[in-house]
């Protein structure tokens, strides 16, 4: 670089910095606003010009969420709170914390079962030579070609006839149908990247198929496994449409459903909704931070072999 003229180098640096900043603003801006507005009162976030940073940090919204169960919400109490200052509580506020637990429960079950089902299926398709393995793979993948929205009515009928409407189990089963085919696909390409001779050596050394899976494929595909866990959990955590159709009340409703319910016909407390949003992104963020060093190599794993 030493020999190159100074001006183009500076120009390049400026350009890079400018577009990086633009990109960060684009990606992180909404999140920043979410966090910032959750710490403001309703009056502060509706002010013009907007308060990009909270004029004073105010945990009132979080306080309201955590204590929503004790507050009575009636037509009168709604009116008491001045809509402009955000004393207003949506009627479903008390459901927020239970729905958080529902989301966590469903997410963890989906993550665990997804891995269990996908690992065994991917191993069978990638490693064991059986008649029809290609057909099996294509069948599994073909289920993902149908848009989810087209499946809603039949799925609702099946779940209803099984008597599973408004249960967490219904959500777990439904989400697995979304995550398993994709995870199988990712894991197959990862497994196929593991040298075949290692499998052969393990079989010779005394492993059956379970042993080869445990001693060779699982330890060597840790990044892909962690990525699969994260993917399944996040898919379950964020899913909206199926949960909306398959659940009816606090017994099984997940966080996205309850939060969306805060947008009311009379009035909507944006600061309150945003505080709930902040609570909703905490688990995924924690997960991403925890697993970040695996996730990057896991997500690219399927793309490039070797």
């Amino acid at each position, binding site marked *: 670089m030493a020999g190159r003229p100074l001006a183009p180098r500076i120009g390049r640096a400026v350009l890079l910095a400018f577009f990086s900043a633009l990109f960060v603003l684009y990606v992180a801006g909404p999140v920043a606003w979410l966090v910032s507005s959750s710490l403001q009162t309703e009056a502060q976030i509706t002010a013009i010009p907007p308060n990009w940073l909270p004029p004073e940090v105010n945990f009132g919204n979080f306080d309201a969420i955590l204590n929503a169960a004790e507050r009575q919400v009636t037509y009168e109490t709604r009116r008491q709170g001045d809509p402009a200052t955000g004393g207003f509580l949506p009627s479903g506020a008390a459901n927020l914390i239970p729905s958080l637990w529902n989301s966590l429960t469903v997410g963890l079950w989906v993550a665990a079962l997804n891995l269990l089902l996908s690992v065994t299926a991917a191993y069978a398709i990638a490693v064991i*030579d059986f008649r029809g393995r290609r057909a099996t793979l294509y069948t599994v993948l073909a289920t993902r070609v149908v848009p989810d929205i087209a499946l809603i009515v039949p799925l609702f009928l099946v779940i209803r006839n099984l008597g599973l409407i408004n249960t967490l189990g219904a959500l777990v089963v439904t989400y697995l149908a979304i995550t398993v085919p994709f995870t199988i696909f990712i894991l197959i390409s990862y497994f196929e990247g593991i*040298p075949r*001779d*290692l499998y*052969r*050596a*393990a*079989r*010779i*050394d*005394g*492993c*059956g198929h379970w*042993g080869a899976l445990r*001693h*060779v494929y699982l*330890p*060597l595909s840790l990044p892909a496994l962690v990525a699969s866990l994260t993917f399944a959990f996040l898919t379950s955590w964020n899913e909206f449409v199926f949960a909306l159709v398959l659940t009816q009340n606090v017994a099984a409703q997940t966080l996205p459903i309850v939060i969306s319910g805060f947008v009311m016909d009379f009035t909507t407390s944006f600061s309150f909704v945003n505080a709930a949003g902040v609570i909703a992104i905490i688990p995924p963020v924690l997960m991403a931070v925890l697993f970040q060093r695996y996730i990057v190599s896991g997500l690219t794993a399927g793309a490039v072999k070797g």
Partner: protein
Amino acid sequence: MAAITCEKLTKRYGSVTAVDRLDLAIGHGEFMVLLGPSGCGKTTTLNMIAGLEEITDGTLRFDATDVTWQPPHKREVAMVFQSYALYPNKTVRENIAFPLQLRRTPRAEVERAVADVSEQLEIAHLLDRHPSQLSGGQRQRVALGRAIVRKPSVFLMDEPLSNLDAALRLSMRSLIKHLHQRLQATFVYVTHDQAEAMTLADRIAVMRGGLIQQLDTPDGIYSRPANTFVASFLGSPPINLVEGEIAADGRFARGALRLDLPPGAVAPGRAVTLGLRPEDVAAPAPGLASLEARVTLVSPLGSETLLEVVAPGDVALTLRVPKEWRVRHGDSMTFGIDPARLHLFDRQTEARL
């Protein structure tokens, strides 16, 4: 120890037959080399013996036991791979101990066996490293260690030396031969390298197109090749093959070239291929056939000299002569050839006559 018996062993992939009704009996403690070019079915045969490839047809026996349908981990065989196939997430110690751990061997015994094996293979100082920190030769030693630690009765080796450089290959070759002598186990060794086959084998099975072309001792294969394929696959530089026919006087004829053959070898008029090993020439002497040729290239090898010559009838030959012969490019020389050392093959069937 175990004897391995293959009866009509067949492997088909769809319409492709990789191994075709192979009959092969490998004795107790024998060192059998499967030799052939790539795609000849030698590795498929090895994998069928290991249990890594399903057998399409035929029977495989270890001693009297039918193991045709036994999975690999029930067969008590050990295998060494060209790619070493060491578990990258395990240390050398864990790699070697792994087969024993799977057999629930007591810990103290595992430690003793690993120490013993690593001593033998001179890898004791590497036990705590991971495979990625080892050189190719060290990795192959670890792979050997993992194979011998179980004291199996059958060793299978799939081109174990092909990824090593030339010098290392020589030392590993003698290491493997020593191992065989000490362990007294049955070895089945796959290679496409004729020098490995010649030096290691008790017997060699030369394969082509899924069929065994010849099964014999190294000396038998070299000095009495069953057909032109076997003849040209072994020997470096390769055997000279000259197409011609048997003249009325019983001599080999190709254009102006005439060569004496052992009396009454083949009936006159037959179309044949003549085989002459480069080293089977000598100074002209009574009792030897003589061959006039012009030298077109001289390549000294130090211990001997390679010559490219053109004999009458425009027949190009490669010859190997003692370094003491003072030969220069362009010389015309007379060579002596012992008719008994010539090989004759049918030109149609390529089979030895």
